[in-house]
């Protein structure tokens, strides 16, 4: 598979997942922001933006939050941007992705709103984003050939999901007076499953365990790490010559898995922000390792006209 196409597929996976997870993140916190009267809106919004690594907005309001993470095409963290980037990558990989999948991404992009909306319009939009991502996932799962292209796309999705779940988990430690964990679980669509798993008896500790190390819940960090490792290993088997650097990625994902699996949960919770930031570091490292082994372009060639030296 062409390196350039592999790169596009990897990023299609990441951007679609990012759009969905950003929508989940916003939905989780919008409601709390509106209901909670104890915290100042500006502080709460600033915290949320910090979790998404946005720090250049001064005194953010709810409107600003929706703009930066929602509809502003010029903000690299917005859902709009993520879908535009996914569509741009899909357009470059058009000849290898199924027609239905291209049309799904393309029509989503065509329907993206660019006009500002408030909290009431936000839910319609965020639900729609999640639906479109679900459609993307469904179409790709049902018709894409399971070749390297599929693995690169899944790898992108999994790494992005790990990264974004870590941010959602970190957001649970923001205090608004009451526990955030149920809301975060709902944001991941895992609240009911969690209650069933723990038979309704739980504390924050179990909630964190479920979102971080549960291997059966598909949006947990652990599940994403395992899925990304699987994809990496399959690609490495198919591309023996170039797989050398990819071992770095497999190794760092494995080290993170071991660390999370055997960590003392109470320690994890005490240092939640720090631990989650470490998760984000590992996904970034893995992305770089994948890029250097599989996506690397040629070194730029410099042309010198004879006699000019």
């Amino acid at each position, binding site marked *: *598979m*062409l*390196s*350039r*196409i*592999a790169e596009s597929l990897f990023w299609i996976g990441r951007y679609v997942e990012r759009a969905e997870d950003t929508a989940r993140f916003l939905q989780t916190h919008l409601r709390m922001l509106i209901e909670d009267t104890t915290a100042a809106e500006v502080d709460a919004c600033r915290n949320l933006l910090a979790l998404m690594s946005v720090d250049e907005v001064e005194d953010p309001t709810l409107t600003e939050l929706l703009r930066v993470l929602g509809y502003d095409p010029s903000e690299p963290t917005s859902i709009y941007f993520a879908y535009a980037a996914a569509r*741009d990558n899909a*357009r*470059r990989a*058009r*000849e*290898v992705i199924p*027609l239905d999948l*291209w*049309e799904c991404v*393309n*029509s989503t992009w*065509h329907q993206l709103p660019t006009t500002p909306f408030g909290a009431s319009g936000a839910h319609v939009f965020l639900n729609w984003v999640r639906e479109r991502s679900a459609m993307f996932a469904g179409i790709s799962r049902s018709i894409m050939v399971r070749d*390297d292209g599929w693995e*690169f796309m899944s790898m992108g999705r999994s790494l992005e999901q790990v990264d974004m779940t870590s941010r959602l988990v970190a957001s649970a430690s923001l205090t608004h007076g009451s526990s955030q964990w149920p809301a975060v679980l709902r944001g991941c669509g895992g609240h009911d499953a969690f209650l069933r798993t723990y038979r309704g008896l739980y504390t924050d500790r179990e909630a964190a365990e479920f979102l971080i190390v549960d291997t059966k819940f598909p949006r947990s960090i652990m599940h994403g790490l395992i899925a990304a490792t699987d994809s990496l290993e399959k*690609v490495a088997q*198919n*591309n*023996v*010559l*170039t797989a050398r650097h990819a071992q770095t990625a497999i190794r760092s994902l494995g080290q993170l898995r071991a660390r999370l699996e055997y960590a003392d949960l109470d320690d994890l919770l005490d240092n939640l922000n720090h631990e989650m930031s470490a998760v984000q570091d590992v996904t970034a490292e893995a992305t770089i390792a994948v890029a250097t082994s*599989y*996506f*690397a*372009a*040629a070194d730029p*060639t410099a*042309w010198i*006209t004879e006699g000019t030296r």
Partner: protein
Amino acid sequence: MADVLSNYRTGDAFDEMMDAEGSVRPSYKAVYSALSRSTSDDLRMIAESLANNYTQAGVTFDVGGVERPFPLDLVPRVIASPEWEIIEAGVAQRVRALEAFLADLYTEARVISDGVIPSQLVTSSTHFHRAVWGITPANGVRIHVAGVDLIRNPDGDVRVLEDNVRVPSGVSYVMTNRNAMITAMPEAFANQRIRPVTGYPTRLLTALRMAAPAGVDDPTVVVLTPGVYNPAYFEHTLLARTMGLELVEGRDLECRRGRVFMRTTAGLQRVDVIYRRVDDDFLDPVHFRSDSMLGVPGLVNAVRTGGVALANAIGNGVADDKLIYTYVPDLIKYYLREDPILPNVDTWRLEEDEAREEVLDRLDELVVKPVDGSGGKGIVIGPRASKSELDALRRRVSEDPRGWIAQPVVQLSTVPTLIEDCLQPRHVDLRPFAVNNGEDVWVLPGGLTRVALPEGELVVNSSKGGGSKDTWVLSPPPHRSPSGRNSTEHKEEDVDHAESQTAVPLTVAQIPVGMKPRINSQRQQQDQQQQGPQRGWTC
């Protein structure tokens, strides 16, 4: 009745649907009756559905960096079978002649020593490349794909306007137009047999594989695109997708020791044939423009050493130079010893002093074109030009007479076209596509009909805001053998399976046997029983 057509008035031009007396030509009977049964609301709905279809599917054409859906008009351009046979033969003849011309020119150049074409004409063509002199492709083909632009003059004669043997584009719209039309107005297809256009990718792929360097049995073929910002990028993806090939950019390729490789996730992989959609000038920074980022350094050397085959070949542009065009009838006679089937449009060569004087006198009634332009660039239509434009043109022509040709203003034929709420005549041309695999030249039935949407406009290029129409070549009436079965049915050598299948009457297939009954969950069976009438315990 016929309110959408009630105001249809043909002008001075030849109208493809109606003759001068206002009666409908036989080939358009079915389309006319379908149209006359429609209201303007019906047509608007079809037009909207066509436009939506193209927006969702991303069938676009970039104009100045903005992606636009390619406008497709709902009234097809219909070509009757006997007429198509002439066009088909004429296009193939031209491609064979130009092929022979290029083969000769880049080797012995007998055409010059025999005095058919002045040598100065060839060497002054901007698309004549000495870099490829002496290179003979493995199967001798230089024009793998050609697009020949045809027009019909007010007398009803089909004439050749120009040849395109470098990187002709537009064939993807032939295929997508047909798909969109079948979805949007299926009933129009029901009562006549229209020759399918789906065979193109297979034909092209076969021709590309046959062009492979000697000794390569199972060649790796790729499509080379300048990238996502090229106006025809959509076409490049469609061709790569329908041929099952990789679509590569210059930066995906690398030349090493006279061979070409592409960068894949598994390392470098050898490439044998490149269907390139990048212009000569940008193809290899070593030989051509050194600032090109779209090409592959070393590509020309790889071609020269036979490490890779390019389709179309480098240097083809000399054959579609508009001044060489005026010699094509001579070339047909010289190489093929045949008379041209399709005549040229009358053309003045501005290099010749007499011709130039006449043209400069009559500049306001002629069309003047640059010899190496494409996409409608630089064309000046005399009757429409302002005085200052004409003065500027006169100056440029006098400075560089080799750079220009002049033609009379030809009123292109018209086809009904939906403009707002009613059908009006609009000018069209036709670009049939030919594929040369080295053994024979195949012409895709139909081709791209381009239509100029503004009233009276004669320039149809898509880069000038033109639209397109689906082009229907009607099948010849079937020759039935005494048993009533179609005689073409057993022609096994027919590559286009679909084409021969359309001529076969539908027969009822055998009913498949041995299928097992489908199983439902026991729960549902129990539920059904519970809801059934035997629920005695409820009493």
